[in-house]
């Protein structure tokens, strides 16, 4: 009757050996290729370092005005600009300016990298069904796998620091931009593509003149989602040495500093709202031509 009461699982010793074998071979791989991988990611690390140095070494007033300018040219909406100004000034007044800047520089780099990899991947998925069939399950894994699980091998390979943090954030934040680029291109009206063909457009012309412009609202929604998800990863990334607003939160958790946690938490929420409103207003502005409908 033991067969029924206990699930027939693999022999314990065998299972242990299996895990050990995998662990050891991965450790071997780490030892052999860790340095090479680190060298490979060196440009990325420099990008992160320069971005962070730029926002922390420049006088705060310059950065503040720069963000206001971006908010204004992105949204052309003074309410959003005033909201952003008040939020940033409050964050600074409560002593979180430096951490906030570090987080913003990190999010900026993560978003740039997600877009740079995500949009071409999305285009490839839209173009080849086989590509879609391969990438979709990978995206499912990226979105549902608990981030701690892939933090382990990343830290084993690259140690603690900015680059592993960046990789963890990008893995988590990139799926929306890939999925929505793919979706946006696939939703482009077949009539439009036929017209483009009828006028003799080649593949590149079709992509740049018809598919991408028409998919842009969807792609913008993807970028917005990517930024939001990157922000959500800030605390987890801080566990492997990424500086910024996540670090104080982490300290607050381990020491039960209620106020520290709440302040930094709200700072994250604040910049998330700024990013969201500005990027959405920008996306809407790009689509101005769809608003005025012939009566």
């Amino acid at each position, binding site marked *: 009757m033991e067969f029924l009461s206990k699930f027939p699982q693999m022999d314990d010793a065998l299972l242990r050996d299996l895990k050990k074998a995998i662990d050891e071979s991965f450790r071997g791989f780490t030892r052999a290729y860790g340095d090479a991988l680190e060298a490979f990611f060196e440009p990325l690390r420099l990008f992160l370092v320069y971005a962070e140095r730029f926002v922390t070494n420049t006088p705060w007033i310059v950065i503040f005005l720069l963000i206001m300018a971006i908010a204004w040219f992105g949204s052309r909406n003074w309410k959003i600009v005033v909201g952003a100004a008040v939020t940033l000034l409050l964050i600074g007044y409560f002593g979180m300016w430096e951490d906030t800047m570090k987080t913003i520089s990190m999010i900026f780099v993560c978003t740039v990298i997600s877009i740079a990899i995500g949009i071409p991947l999305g285009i490839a998925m839209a173009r080849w069904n086989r590509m879609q069939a391969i990438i979709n399950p990978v995206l499912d894994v990226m979105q549902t796998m608990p981030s701690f699980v892939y933090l382990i091998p990343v830290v084993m390979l690259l140690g603690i620091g900015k680059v592993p943090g960046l990789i963890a954030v990008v893995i988590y934040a990139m799926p929306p931009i890939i999925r929505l680029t793919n979706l946006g291109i696939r939703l482009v*009206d077949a*009539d*439009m593509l*036929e*017209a*483009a*063909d*009828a*006028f*003799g*457009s*080649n593949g590149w*012309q079709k992509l740049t*003149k*018809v598919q991408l*412009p*028409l998919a*842009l609202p969807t792609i913008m929604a993807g970028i917005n989602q990517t930024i939001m998800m990157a922000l959500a990863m800030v605390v987890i990334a801080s566990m492997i040495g990424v500086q910024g607003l996540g670090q104080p939160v982490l300290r607050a958790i381990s020491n039960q500093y209620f106020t520290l946690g709440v302040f930094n938490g709200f700072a994250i929420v604040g910049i998330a709202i700024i990013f969201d409103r500005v990027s959405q207003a920008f996306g809407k502005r790009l*689509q101005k*031509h*769809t*608003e*005025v*409908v*012939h009566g």
Partner: protein
Amino acid sequence: MAEPIGIQIRNLYKIFGPDAAALIEKVRTGTTKTELNEKYGAVLGLNNINMDMAAGQIQVIMGLSGSGKSTLIRHINRLIDPTAGEVLVGGDDVVKMSPEALREFRRHKTAMVFQKFALLPNRTVLENTGYGLEVQGVPREKRIETSMRWIERVGLKGFEKKYPNQLSGGMQQRVGLARALSNDAPILLMDEAFSALDPLIRVDMQSVLLDLQKEIRKTIVFITHDLDEALRLGDSIAILRDGEIIQMGSSQDIVLKPANDYIANFVREVNRGRVIHVEKAMSPLRADTALPAASVAAGTSLDDAMKHLVARGADRLTVTDGQNRPLGVIDSATIVAALVGGV
């Protein structure tokens, strides 16, 4: 202006469905559309089409939905690949072109106007009009100059900075027309171009097209499901049913000699006064015919001849040819008889 070129279609077949090439012999030896669908799950789109479209003329292809007319026009610029057959444009077989040659052909030899306009919503009228030229790599200055000329010509001056969404259907299709004309291609393909428009605007656009054609002299292939439109526009009309051409001819031929009951049914509703010309109804000259003083030229419609009679207070008219020589005589009783279907 590009020289007009004619289009010849030879033994064109299109079968939709898997394994189409294997079924082509079955169709050639007489398998019908229904049999093909029931036995092999394939759809016979076009069945042995043979057509000559004259250079510089408007060729109308008329049929109801499902007749294959939109499929046929898409074979001319090979948006659809045929299962078998040839499409000769100026002597070149479009079916055999390489992808590069086909692209060049589409850029320079054909332009297309679509039923649902297919304008890019994110581009202004001016940018939409210049799309074909942009794809050809024409420099910006030249593109704007050409686009502006055609925007003006289709009556949209002052709207060039508007987006398609801000225009009515009729105006959007004028943009579609301007875009096609900017290409300066000898062949203009119009796929139910006016079907989505209100009746009054449709008639208006037909006038625009006829008016333009006097000047541009392109080979126009015009698809429609509307017989009135076909009769008004077509120098020659082909009627398509279930993927086969069932009658080809001028509007007079179609109205006066419908090839079968199917066409006769359509023709019954047509305003004959506008289609039939006086020379088809007149009595030919005999030695003893007295020529009335009032005259009309051959090619005048019965409607206009009737107006003539009323205006002159006459009862009979002399029908004359281009050199003012008498061809025959027509009286009001004959006109009325022709109008009610007595010819």
